[in-house]
């Protein structure tokens, strides 16, 4: 909502506050002033000029040499506008004048001819092109014939004005009108509000003699007022009206349309003007549209209607989409002489539905959607009639054609001063409360420690006691509220075990050298299930904004890998990222099964200390080591079992299991996948945190530090390549019994010195007895048992 301060002063005394100060007061009281716009923008030395003569420039086709009377002299000015002509009153920027953007007008020569100033368009005065009347959009603006030559354009035509741009919240529909803003400013500044005085002469003939009215949908249209004005002349509006509309962000058209828009801005009540003759039937019938009925709206679009749409008809065919936009078939034009002014109350839900269905929002529909003041429907119609009789020479027929079933009593809210103070934590005196309610023009009766408040119908947002609390607080001033802390029983607060574990994971991952990434949950259908261990049916949005963001992910990896590619494409060759976030799986419930996952993606070098010759590229075991470390931290026994998953290297993939349940996967990207993503060797891991965190970690009890030394024996084996170290390790452990404390692989050799298909693996076995120092003989006895078991299993001892 754009509020011209000059216009506002018609209704309320703004105490000549500087605009910024007025804006600040309005903001602090609850309606945010987004911008304070100075319409004059430092303009100076701009006057009305009369074009005495206008001839083609001998050297330039598109230029005219004009002799312009600017009051104190007649100046020669060269003008390039196509619509310049002798006999016009025009806007002249004199030498020394300033225009928006700091441009300064100087005497100049244009193609050899002297030019003493500039004839201006409205755009050159800083008015947005879309607000300039169409007739002058491509050239200079022509002032009315009665403009006083030589007078100051800025003051005479109200450009010395400031506009406040209000950012309105949906509840303050009341401030979508100049009168509404006037009430607000009046309450803030403690000033009275002056309503427009409406007087005009009526014709003897009654409106009802020319127009009949039928309302078929009273629930959607409980009040309809029509006035008939005849003998009008459709022409340009006077300057003051055009300027006010432009200040309000509305483009002037002609006096009839301008009056309806003016009253819309003034009262917040949408009006529509029909050409009476084009209605053809002298009848207005409001009904719901028939299926597939057609109407061409004023914006030139033909629209197919549905049963939900309320339409204004001439008894036969639609002539307007009620409350949203008029029809082209009854549009006011230059030839119009008689008009019907419609002022109606349409139920907000109906308008919202139509507006949404046709993707069509207008100044009218946006006000109806939020609810207009039922008590302004009739005054707005009268106000339009008055202005049309004044500005269009019209003769207003007596009375109105009216249908009225609208309830419009004032809402009564009862609230006690104690309630108000206890909600705010303040001690506002009753007198101060009554004063504020009085400033708001809420009629209030105080008795028995209770306020009975009648809320004007313009404030439909005020419904309950708490709304009154807010009205009192905002006008009393939020700065006056003290700062206290809740006096609730103090509880310790804190993180749940799950949340604590999540932070442990985060700290561990970062300590391990991974950066935390955050990616989008929405992805394409194609990548939604890629790398997902548990694939379910896809979950698509009903109305996605793009295919790329149409479906909920079932794995974190596709987007995490995109982030890796983003970095490698920027020549960051080593990337180590992790993410925790939800994946979305279809479950039994209508809600999804949201499962929080942890994912890792690494590429490039893991260790890089080049000058010391230390370089280590990422591989499967780097990531496996991170997972093993995490398992140790969380005290869970994870196992790794060979597996395959689409997109991963079939020989370098393992499922991570916990208590026999698969909870994750770790693997190297398949070479094809790496190529498609333009990546070098990349290792990924994803597991379910929900599963990982399922069991409560056992209490930590220390085990005694060993008092006796342990003894280490090594064994090097030659194995078939397909035999896994893990299998051998299990075998060693079971043969080693309870004296065997630890088994570690310390060497792996696959090369020329071995038979084809063989590999050599060396294990280091640690023996330990907590009760005593082991003797060599005792260890040898156990170790020989282990070796015997290994040989029996088919392993050869490496010599």
């Amino acid at each position: 909502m754009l509020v011209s301060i000059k216009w506002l002063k018609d209704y309320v005394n703004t105490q000549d506050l500087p605009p910024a100060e007025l804006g600040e007061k309005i903001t602090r009281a609850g309606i945010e002033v987004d911008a304070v716009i100075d319409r004059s923008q430092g303009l100076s030395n701009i006057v009305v000029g009369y074009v005495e003569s206008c001839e083609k420039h001998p050297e330039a086709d598109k230029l005219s040499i004009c002799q312009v009377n600017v009051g104190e002299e007649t100046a020669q000015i060269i003008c390039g506008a196509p619509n310049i002509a002798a006999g016009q009153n025009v806007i002249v920027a004199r030498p020394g004048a300033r225009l928006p953007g700091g441009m300064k007008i100087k005497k100049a020569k244009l193609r050899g001819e002297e030019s003493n100033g500039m004839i201006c368009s409205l755009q050159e005065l800083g008015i947005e092109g879309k607000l300039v009347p169409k007739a002058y959009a491509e050239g200079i603006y022509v002032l009315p014939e009665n403009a006083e030559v030589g007078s100051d354009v800025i003051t005479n035509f109200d450009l010395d004005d400031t506009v406040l741009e209000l950012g309105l919240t949906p509840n303050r529909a009341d401030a979508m009108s100049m009168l509404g803003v006037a009430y607000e400013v009046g309450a803030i500044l403690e000033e009275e509000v002056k309503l427009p005085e409406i007087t005009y002469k009526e014709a003897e003939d009654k409106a009802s003699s020319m127009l009949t009215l039928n309302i078929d949908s009273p629930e959607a249209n409980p009040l309809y007022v029509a006035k008939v004005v005849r003998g009008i002349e459709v022409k340009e509006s006077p300057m003051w009206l055009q300027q006010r509309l432009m200040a309000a962000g509305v483009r002037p058209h002609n006096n009839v349309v301008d009056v309806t828009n003016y009253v819309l801005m003034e009262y917040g009540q949408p009006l529509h003007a029909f050409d009476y003759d084009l209605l053809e039937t002298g009848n207005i019938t409001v009904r719901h549209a028939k299926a597939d009925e057609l109407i061409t709206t004023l914006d030139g679009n033909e629209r197919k209607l549905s049963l939900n749409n309320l339409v204004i008809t001439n008894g036969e065919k639609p002539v307007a989409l009620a409350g949203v936009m008029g029809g082209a078939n009854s549009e006011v034009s230059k030839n119009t002489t008689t008009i019907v002014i419609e002022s109606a109350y349409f139920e907000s839900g109906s308008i919202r539905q139509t507006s949404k269905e046709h993707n069509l929002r207008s100044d009218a529909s946006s006000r109806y959607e939020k609810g207009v003041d039922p008590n302004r429907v009739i005054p707005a119609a009268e106000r339009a009639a008055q202005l049309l009789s004044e500005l269009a020479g019209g003769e207003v027929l007596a009375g109105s054609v009216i249908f009225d079933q609208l309830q419009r009593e004032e809402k009564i809210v009862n609230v006690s001063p104690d309630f108000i103070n206890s909600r705010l934590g303040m001690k506002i005196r009753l007198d101060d409360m009554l004063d504020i309610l009085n400033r708001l023009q809420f009629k209030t009766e105080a008795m028995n420690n209770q306020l009975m408040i009648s809320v004007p119908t313009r404030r439909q947002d005020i419904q309950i006691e708490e709304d009154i609390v807010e009205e009192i607080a905002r006008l009393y001033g939020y700065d006056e509220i003290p700062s206290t802390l809740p006096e609730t029983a103090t509880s310790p607060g804190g993180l749940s075990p799950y949340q604590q574990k999540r932070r442990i994971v985060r700290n561990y991952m970062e300590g391990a050298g991974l950066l935390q990434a955050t990616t989008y949950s929405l992805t394409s259908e194609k990548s939604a299930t890629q790398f997902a261990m548990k694939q379910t049916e896809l979950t698509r949005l009903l109305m996605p904004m793009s295919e790329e963001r149409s479906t909920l992910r079932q794995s974190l990896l596709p987007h995490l890998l995109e982030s890796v590619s983003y970095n490698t494409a920027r020549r960051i060759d080593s990337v180590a990222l992790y993410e925790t976030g939800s994946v979305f799986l279809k479950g039994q419930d209508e809600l999804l099964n949201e499962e929080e996952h942890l994912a890792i993606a690494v590429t490039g070098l893991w260790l890089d200390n080049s000058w010391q010759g230390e370089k280590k590229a990422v591989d499967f075991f780097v990531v496996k080591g991170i997972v093993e470390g995490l398992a140790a931290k969380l005290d869970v026994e994870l196992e790794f079992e060979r597996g395959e998953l689409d997109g991963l290297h079939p020989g370098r993939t393992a499922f991570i299991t916990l208590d026999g349940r698969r909870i994750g996967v770790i693997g190297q990207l398949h070479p094809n996948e790496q190529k498609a993503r333009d990546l070098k060797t990349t290792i990924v891991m994803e597991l379910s945190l929900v599963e990982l965190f399922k069991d409560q970690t056992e209490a930590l009890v220390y085990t005694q530090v060993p008092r006796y030394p342990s003894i280490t024996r090594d064994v090097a084996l030659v194995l078939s390549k397909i035999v896994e170290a893990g299998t051998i390790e299990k075998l060693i452990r079971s043969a080693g019994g309870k004296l065997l404390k630890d088994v570690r692989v310390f060497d792996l050799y696959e090369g020329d010195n071995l038979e084809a298909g063989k590999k050599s693996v060396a294990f280091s076995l640690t023996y330990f007895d907590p009760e005593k120092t082991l003797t060599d003989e005792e260890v040898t006895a156990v170790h020989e048992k282990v070796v015997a078991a290994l040989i029996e299993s088919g392993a050869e001892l490496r010599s």
Partner: protein
Amino acid sequence: MEAQLNELKTQALDKIAAASNVKELNAVRVAYLGKKGPITDLLKGMGKLPAEERPKMGALVNVVREEVTVRLEERMAILEEQAINEKLQSETIDITLPGRPVKSGNAHPLTRVIEEIEDLFISMGYEIEEGPEVEKDYYNFEALNLPKGHPARDMQDSFYISEDILLRTHTSPVQARTMEAKGGEPIKIICPGKVYRRDNDDATHSHQFTQIEGLVIGEDIRMSDLKGTLSVFAKKMFGEDREIRLRPSFFPFTEPSVEMDISCFKCGGEGCNVCKKTGWIEILGAGMVHPNVLEMAGYDSKRLTGFAFGMGPERIAMLKYGIEDIRHFYTNDVRFLSQFQRTEV
């Protein structure tokens, strides 16, 4: 013989002085003091002397041997130290070469902001509540006083999955769920999480972003409690000398509703580009929980009251760290992420 002894002593002392390293000096030791050395020879030759001269000569030889030995030890100490020094010299490294890097990652800046806020409120006795990102229309809107057809629903265009299921547009449904679960008992919670709105991604909009909300319900919770709580938050997050101000606003789930501004942390209130010349920066929305919201969750709104507040970690991070484009949070450029390594204490 005495002259011979003195000659020997002079020779030995000269050689000791001339020895330039431990090895040479050891050779001198062997040459003069060893079993086959001249001093031993002299002692062996004493048998030929008259008996009365022997004690005198013996003493003399011992004096010489003593002196040579002492001088040799002295020289040895010097040469040994010299040898160590040479070795150390040769072992000198270029300490300006870089150290072996310790691999270390760090939290995402949004996590950093969210955890800082969580920890602040935990210290004031709040618990952290979380909820589903795919939510029922009921919890996302209706339970928050936003019935179907409510004009404020336009404020947040949503991603629906079906008529009744959508990606939550704010973390407020967690409040609604918590209230319902607590069955009328007092509440003190913080709810962080991801939310989604139908916005085109650009420098200031993101279809996915985060929110963190707070809710306190109890007996006699007042607007002044909200103001005091927010003041503690503002000072902790943005500096001890921050002032706050409340401006009336509108949210369907609170009444009265306010927006909180803090005095600009860059210019201190004089006006700059961060605060758009106003001296104030808008940080969050808040209000007293609307009685309809309390009643819908089974609370007696006459007996218990509450306040709620909500803010965007993206906005806070952008303000705090001077980040100009919200898309940085979701691009995961390593050059962006790794800037949040260091602490600010």
